[in-house]
């Protein structure tokens, strides 16, 4: 019986210690000069997308009239709602010359995306219907990803929204 216990414990330890990188977190900065914000980082490619109000939105056009464009990727989930609510209440109105665009990459159609937008209480925001996930692919994005592109096409930020502090830091530095 003791052997069975020991065997189980050993199997468990093996499972817990085998190639599971979350077991030991790492503070090392793994970014390179080609990472977002790096000296040799790739510029943002232009894109054109339809909004949920059937408005054609082009990145280059938006950057002609604004200091920066912020993309936020939503799938209408609790965390997305927290982020969007926080952004609307604490950030958007403070940066009038920054264009904030929400990206819905799960709804599949413009009309469905608009329906989700309205039912979740965000009718007043501009939402891009990324029906083919082209914007997901372009920025390697997922739920909560927040991208900031300045008027020189530099991608200044591409990471999770978290508590919004990073986004504010980036926008303050514009």
């Amino acid at each position: 019986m003791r052997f069975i216990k020991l065997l189980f414990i050993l199997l468990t330890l093996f499972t817990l210690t085998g190639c599971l990188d979350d077991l030991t977190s790492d503070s090392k900065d793994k970014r390179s000069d080609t990472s977002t914000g790096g000296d040799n980082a790739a510029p943002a490619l232009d894109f054109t997308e339809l909004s949920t109000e059937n408005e054609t939105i082009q990145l280059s056009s938006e950057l002609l009239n604004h200091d920066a464009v912020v993309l936020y990727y939503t799938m209408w989930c609790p965390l997305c709602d927290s982020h969007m609510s926080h952004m609307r209440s604490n950030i958007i109105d403070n940066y009038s010359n920054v264009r904030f665009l929400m990206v819905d990459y799960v709804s599949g159609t413009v009309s469905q995306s608009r329906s989700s937008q309205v039912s979740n209480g965000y009718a007043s925001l501009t939402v891009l219907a990324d029906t083919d996930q082209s914007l997901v692919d372009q920025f390697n994005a997922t739920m909560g990803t927040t991208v900031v592109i300045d008027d020189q096409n530099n991608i200044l930020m591409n990471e999770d929204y978290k508590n919004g502090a990073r986004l504010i830091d980036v926008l303050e530095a514009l």
Partner: protein
Amino acid sequence: MRKRSPWVKSALPVSALLLSSSALLLPSSSAYAASCCGGGNSSSLVLPKFGNQMIDVSVDIEDYKGYWNQDGDYKKDPQGSDLNQYRLNMGYAFRIADNWQANVIVPYVWNDNTYPGITSKENGLGDASVSFWYETFDQVTCVYQVNSIEDLRPAIYVGGTLTVPTGKSAYGDDATSSFDITGRGLYRFDANLLIEKTVYPFTVTLQGSYGKYLERDVNQEYGTAIEPYKKNLGDRKFISASLGYTYFLEELDTVTFTAALSDLREDEGEIDGVSDPLTEFKKQSTALTTAYATSDLRWVFKGTWSHALREDGKGQNFPTTDIFTLGVSYAFY
């Protein structure tokens, strides 16, 4: 005569991320039979008083049906979406001394999410847990009649659970999108208290736990290197109350029906020491469990339906789900 009654555990999000789409969270849910005579609780198995070892296997089917937003308002998922998570929970409990026992639970998670515009099926190991329990009583406390004040003495278990981030989180190498997530990425220690009293045919159970996460470094999100920061989640508080009724069958096999109410909350997290209120959540749910136990208490078969209350104010910043659990345990004496 010893007998067990069902205990229901609240769903723990594998992560608040999985949420809506896969997770949650948050953590895996399980339903175990439990009583002064043995069983389980929200975070681990509990051996029968005179049991030496127990193997417990259960399957969770979690169906996501909307969520509570930051204001506590219930919102539906996008029309046409079908979001599910399936978990296989493998548990092993063993006695380490007369009044001490320990157990390990390792879940395996499948995320199965369909939106009108995207479909995803991913799987991986979930967050494992290791628990220790101390039994404050030397004899079984279940009684058929209350003849003295001593007969009212409940079974009290005091324990601790360490949750180990063996799942795929947003901060490891293995997840490239939120659909991949099967764990929260942080260690957590919970202090647990389980109080139970059986006066046949009724069993009343109260359980509470308080958990603290261990702060961690983050230098990547979904496989992309970012400026390093320190992350912590808020303290977790769980409380549950249940009432069970037991029928005795022929040859003293039993069937027990249990109804439970539970409340799970997590406080604000921190990023680089600065408050992160966006990870705070609350969930209130109900559960019904049916458990069949053989008279020798070796085999227990159980099924649970856990239902999050889809009403405004019953939760915050958390998905509302139904969890169907089927499980079986076998105890060695």
